[in-house]
Each structure stands twice: as structure tokens, then as C-alpha cells.
């Protein structure tokens, strides 16, 4: 048992650090939840991809570097330490790509993944519906069989970044006579500018159009854009769900970097005699370090053939609550400046915390609410009996 990086891993870290130092924009990009910021972030994806830094853990055939999970963790540490931009391509990379690797055809992989890696195609997820949030299996949007493909009808919601994205992936009910709600679903990919698609941007708390509602009126999807077997979409999607909760969506580097920044903020701004606040800063440090070490464990286990399984639910609850606590602490450290939104004139030196805080508030909700995750932890990891969720 050790924490020693190999010479190759150290060299990789050094290469990443050097590249990032030379390429990370000096001026922060505008928010990716705005039209102009989205374009800036897409350009950044292109820059990353040009030197093969956008998807380091993917096969080189699709634009990656065939790197291990551990090396990906190293890259992420360097990425966030360098203050590099948020990843506008992340929904495709972390949610759709793992599904394609596992269930996609060779033709789909070859067609979809390189364009995803380069930022040419930005993907949005289309899971939730107005009546299907936590209860995802109760989806109502349908896919009706037609010559050579399917016609999608219905409504999707909470589609992150769909206001500006190119394509979306999601589940549709194609076999309405299936015997259980989570059967008879099909996993499809479709363009957001197709005939019959209406995108209505939805503003999040801070007013930015961070997600959208999608209204689908006989949107044609060719068979080539069905992932996995029609009617088996639930199990196809579940492989994605594990990824969404695990460390690959929110890498430890993000939190170790934020915790370091928090310590710096505390040194710069806090009433140093307030040890109650110092304790909370320390808790953020301790939890970020725990998450980092836990991911090293996971990477080791994976390298030896293990699987994350239901542990991804523990991970999701942990990082989402860490993220929130860390940002709440930062706002308290800032005292009277803590309530400034990131658009405030006084904010450049301080305001990244406000956007981070707003973002962190959603953590316990998306990717499966923490209530659902705790049910899963109790039932699958602790073996407690299932129930009806009612009191």
C-alpha cells in the first residue's frame, strides 16, 4: 500500500501541468450558461482536444491517450489546480460516452466520440420529465415505430445546457405494453435542431439559462441512433447512472483545488480569531482529502479488476454535501461580501464563490437526489429491506 506515483505517472503529471500553464486562459471565460460563454468554452474544448487533453482516459482512436483512471485523477488535479475553465462537454464525456463504450456499435463510437472529444458536438442529457424526476421509471415521452427509425413525442425537462447544445440523449417509451414501468424504454440520440424539437431555456436561481425544456413533436430518430437494444434502454442507461454518481463526474481534483482556495480565502479574509470558522475550513480540507484518497482506492481497485457498484451512491452523497459545505463556509468567511453575486462589480476578486455556491446547491438534487442515494446505500450496501418510501 503506497501513495507513490510511478515515474510515468509523474511524467504525465508534469506534461499536463506544463501544457496547462501555457494554455489556460489568463482571463476567466464568461459563464458557460450564457450564449457567449458557451461559445468560449466550446473553443476551449477545441484547444484541449487539439493537443489530446480533452479525454485522456479514452482510447487514442477516439482522441484520447489510453490513460488509466489514476492518471485521469492526476490530470484532473492539475486541471483544477491550474484554474482551467469548466468543461462544457462534460455531459457527453461522462454520461453518454461510457454508455457508448459499453453498449454502442463500432459505427456509433466512430461517428460520435471524436466529435464529442473535439467539442464539435456538445451533448445534453434528456432524462427527466415533469412527472418523472426521482421516479425516472415513470417516463411518458414515447418513441413510435416508423420506417427506419422512431418518432419521438413528449416533453423532457432539466436538460442541462440544452439551451445551447447540439444534440441530446435520453430514454423514450417505445414498448407501452411492457409489464413493468422500467421496461419497454429505448435509449436514443437526437439533434436539438431537428424538425419537431422546441427548446425552451429555463433560468436557474441566478437567472442564467442553465437548462431547458424540450418539446418533441414527431422527431425522427433513425435506427442508427438507438443505443443498445430497443426496449432495453433502462439497463443501458443504468450503466450511465453509475458513472454520473461516481468520481468521474465530479473528480476529487475539483474539491482539493477548491479546498486549497478556501484555505487561501480564509488566510486573506477571515477573522483569524474565529476558530469556529477555522474548524469548518478544516472540515472542507479533511473531506476533500478523504475524497481524493478514496478515489485513489477506487482507481487501484479498478486497475485490479474490481467494480464500483453501489459505492457510487456513497460517492455522490459525499461530494455533493462536501461541495455545499465548502461553499457555505466560503460565503461565511467572506462576511458582508458573501452575498455578492458573481456579476457584482466587487466580485472579480471574490465572486467565483457565489457561482460555485449556486452550483453546489443543486448537487444534492441532480444525478439522483441524495434521498434516493441513501435509500440505495441502505438497501444495496447495508442489506436493509426495501419498502415503500412512505412514513
Amino acid at each position: 500500500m503506497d501513495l507513490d506515483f510511478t515515474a510515468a505517472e509523474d511524467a504525465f503529471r508534469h506534461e499536463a501541468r506544463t501544457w496547462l500553464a501555457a494554455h489556460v486562459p489568463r482571463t476567466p471565460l464568461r459563464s458557460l450558461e450564457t450564449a457567449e460563454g458557451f461559445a468560449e468554452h466550446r473553443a476551449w474544448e477545441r484547444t484541449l482536444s487539439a493537443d489530446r487533453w480533452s479525454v485522456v482516459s479514452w482510447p487514442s482512436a477516439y482522441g484520447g491517450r489510453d490513460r488509466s483512471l489514476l492518471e485521469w485523477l492526476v490530470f484532473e488535479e492539475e486541471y483544477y489546480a491550474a484554474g482551467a475553465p469548466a468543461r462544457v462537454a462534460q455531459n457527453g464525456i461522462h454520461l453518454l460516452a461510457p454508455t457508448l463504450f459499453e453498449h454502442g456499435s463500432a459505427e456509433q463510437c466512430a461517428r460520435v466520440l471524436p466529435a464529442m472529444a473535439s467539442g464539435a458536438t456538445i451533448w445534453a442529457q434528456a432524462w427527466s420529465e415533469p412527472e418523472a424526476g426521482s421516479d425516472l421509471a415513470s417516463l411518458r415521452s414515447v418513441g413510435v415505430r416508423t420506417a427506419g427509425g422512431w418518432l419521438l413525442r413528449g416533453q423532457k425537462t432539466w436538460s442541462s445546457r440544452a439551451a445551447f447544445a447540439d444534440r441530446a440523449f435520453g430514454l423514450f417509451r417505445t414498448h407501452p405494453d411492457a409489464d413493468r414501468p422500467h421496461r419497454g424504454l429505448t435509449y436514443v440520440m437526437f439533434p436539438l435542431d431537428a424538425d419537431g424539437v422546441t427548446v425552451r431555456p429555463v433560468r436557474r436561481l441566478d437567472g442564467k439559462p442553465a437548462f431547458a425544456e424540450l418539446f418533441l413533436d414527431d422527431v425522427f430518430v433513425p435506427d442508427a441512433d438507438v443505443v443498445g437494444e430497443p426496449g432495453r434502454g433502462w439497463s443501458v442507461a443504468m450503466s450511465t447512472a453509475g458513472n454520473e454518481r461516481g468520481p468521474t463526474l465530479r473528480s476529487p481534483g475539483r474539491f482539493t483545488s477548491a479546498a486549497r482556495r478556501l484555505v487561501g480565502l480564509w488566510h486573506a479574509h477571515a477573522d483569524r480569531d474565529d476558530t469556529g470558522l477555522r474548524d469548518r475550513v478544516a472540515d472542507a480540507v479533511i473531506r476533500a482529502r478523504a475524497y481524493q484518497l478514496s478515489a485513489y482506492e477506487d482507481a487501484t481497485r479498478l486497475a485490479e479488476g474490481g467494480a464500483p457498484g453501489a459505492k457510487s451512491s456513497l460517492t455522490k452523497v459525499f461530494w455533493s454535501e462536501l461541495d455545499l459545505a465548502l461553499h457555505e463556509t466560503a460565503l461565511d468567511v467572506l462576511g458582508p461580501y458573501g452575498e455578492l453575486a458573481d456579476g457584482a462589480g466587487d466580485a472579480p476578486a471574490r465572486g467565483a464563490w457565489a457561482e460555485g455556491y449556486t452550483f453546489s446547491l443543486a448537487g444534492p438534487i441532480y444525478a439522483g437526489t441524495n434521498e434516493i442515494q441513501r435509500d440505495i446505500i441502505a438497501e444495496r450496501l447495508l442489506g436493509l429491506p426495501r419498502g415503500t418510501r412512505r412514513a
Partner: protein
Amino acid sequence: MRFLLDTEQTAFGHTLDRMLSAADTPAVVRAWAAGNHGPGLAVWERLADAGVFAVAVPRAYGGMGPLPVELCVAFVALGRHAVPGPLVETVTAVALLSRLAERGEPAPAEEWLPRLGAGKARVTVALADGGPYALDADAADATFVVTGGHHALRLATGHGPVQPSLDPARRLSRPLTGGEPLAGGPAVRDAASYATGWAAFTTAAQALGVGLALLERTVAYARTRTQFGAAIGSFQAVKHRLADALLGLEFARPLLHGAAVALASGAPGAGAEIAAAKVAACDAAYAAARTALQVHGAIGYTAECDVSLWLGKARALRSAWGTPAACRARALELFDQ
């Protein structure tokens, strides 16, 4: 001892609640956040007519006060309906100028208090202990500033650019320096300290109202929203979170009323009572906000959902007019022999 609102006080709250329910405050808040003060100022006038500011202003200046219990009732209603504007700050200015008059500087009080009590003016304040910003200076007729160190009271000559807050309806800005000093020295120092107590007290009351509104709306949502074939309010995890939210609010209220009674009696311990109420009410409101967001799920995270109007306010009031740490340090005095 009779430690309960009397019939008139309860009726005062109900009157305000009814008036504000009819005023479509969500639309008013959104307009205010966009810099359109018109609808908010119309509400302000009606609040003044109902006596909301008169209960802060001493009788000597044409008011009916100071009546802290009535003020508390009013600010709970203002918080419950998310009414925008320099409400706390106007009451703070009233306290500042009243006290200054008692300490031998009556001119500012005579000039301002009758108009403030009648709702014919709105003012804001920046006091040394309350951070560098003044709230809603762009909607105020004057910004009273007390600087640290010198303890000079002056009227700001204007304000810097508006700094948006996590609560979009709170428009913060730095008062410009300069402006004629109105008074100075120990009297200003004492008045500013006194006024800061009223600011914390009305902020706490407003926070309690914010928490109550969040809880009410979230309970209503949990009763109607179904998932897994049942109202989500029937899930024990949701129930217990909502029960905890109620618990926090229910035990913040007596502290707030205790602070009001202490203020009314002029007791020297009022500062500690106010600090305790501020901690409890703001913690309870913030906890209610976290619960409201979690129980609403994604819909609560949108600016389109009215709940958002209270979420940011619960966060902002936590640090406004007294941080949690400063209030706790002060509250310790309650039981310190």
C-alpha cells in the same frame, strides 16, 4: 405576565398578510430586482398607510412608537411576502436619528422622522458594523453613513454601481465618500450601536417570515407532488426534514418576541436577546430554505419558481446586520453571571 401577541397585534399581522397576498409580491420582487422600483414603492405606500413605519417612529415625531412588538409582527409579514426595499434600513435610520436626538442632536430627527413614519421618504444606511454596502440606495431618498473610527454621521452624496446579491431583490452599493457631517463623536457612536440592534432585530423578524413562507410553500408542494405513486410528503425522509424546519421556526419565534419585549422595556440585556433571536431566526430560515430547495427538487432551483424569491433572501439575511459568530458571542451574555 402575558407572553403572547394580543388581539390587536395579531390582527395587525393578518391585515398586512391579507394586503400583501393581494399585492402579488412575487411580481413586485421581480420588478424590483430588475431596477423597476415602481410597484415596490406602491406597496411601500400601502405599508406606510397601514402603520408599518409609524410603529417605529416615536410619538414626538408624529409616529406611534417605538413599538417593537408591532414592528416584529410587521417584519414577519414583510419577510413572509418577500417585500423588497430598504425596510430594515429605514427602521434602522429611525432608531439612529431618534437616539441621536435623545443624545442632544435633534435636527436630523426633526427633519426626517415625520416623513419616514408617514412613508413619504425611504432611506438606507451604512453603519460601520454592518459592512461596506448600503441596501437599495438607488431607491432611497437618502443614505445615512456612519464611518468607523471617527464616528461621523453624514449623508452620502450618491452611491457606486449596484452590486447584485444572491437575493436579486437586494441591490447593494457603496455610498460615495464626502458629504456634509451631520453630527459626530460619542453620541453618534452610541446611536449607531443602538440602531444596529434594531437592524438585527428587524432582520431576524424578516428572516422568520422568510422561513415561514418557505415552509408553507414546501408543505403545500409536498402534499400535491407525487412520485413513486404517492405524494412525496408521505415519505418519511421528507416528513422529518419538514418537521425539523418547523421546529427551528417555532422556537425562533419566542426569542424574537423576547427581544421585542426587551427592546420595549429598554432593558440593558436587549442586545443579547436580539443576538439570540437573530441566530435562531436566521439559522431556521436558512435551514427552511435548504429544505425547500431539496423537497422541490429541480423546479425549486429555477428563477421561474416563486420559491426562488425567498431562497436567496434566507442566505443574505444570515450575514446581514450581524454574522452568526458575532451574534453567538453576544448571546452568551444572556446567562453569563
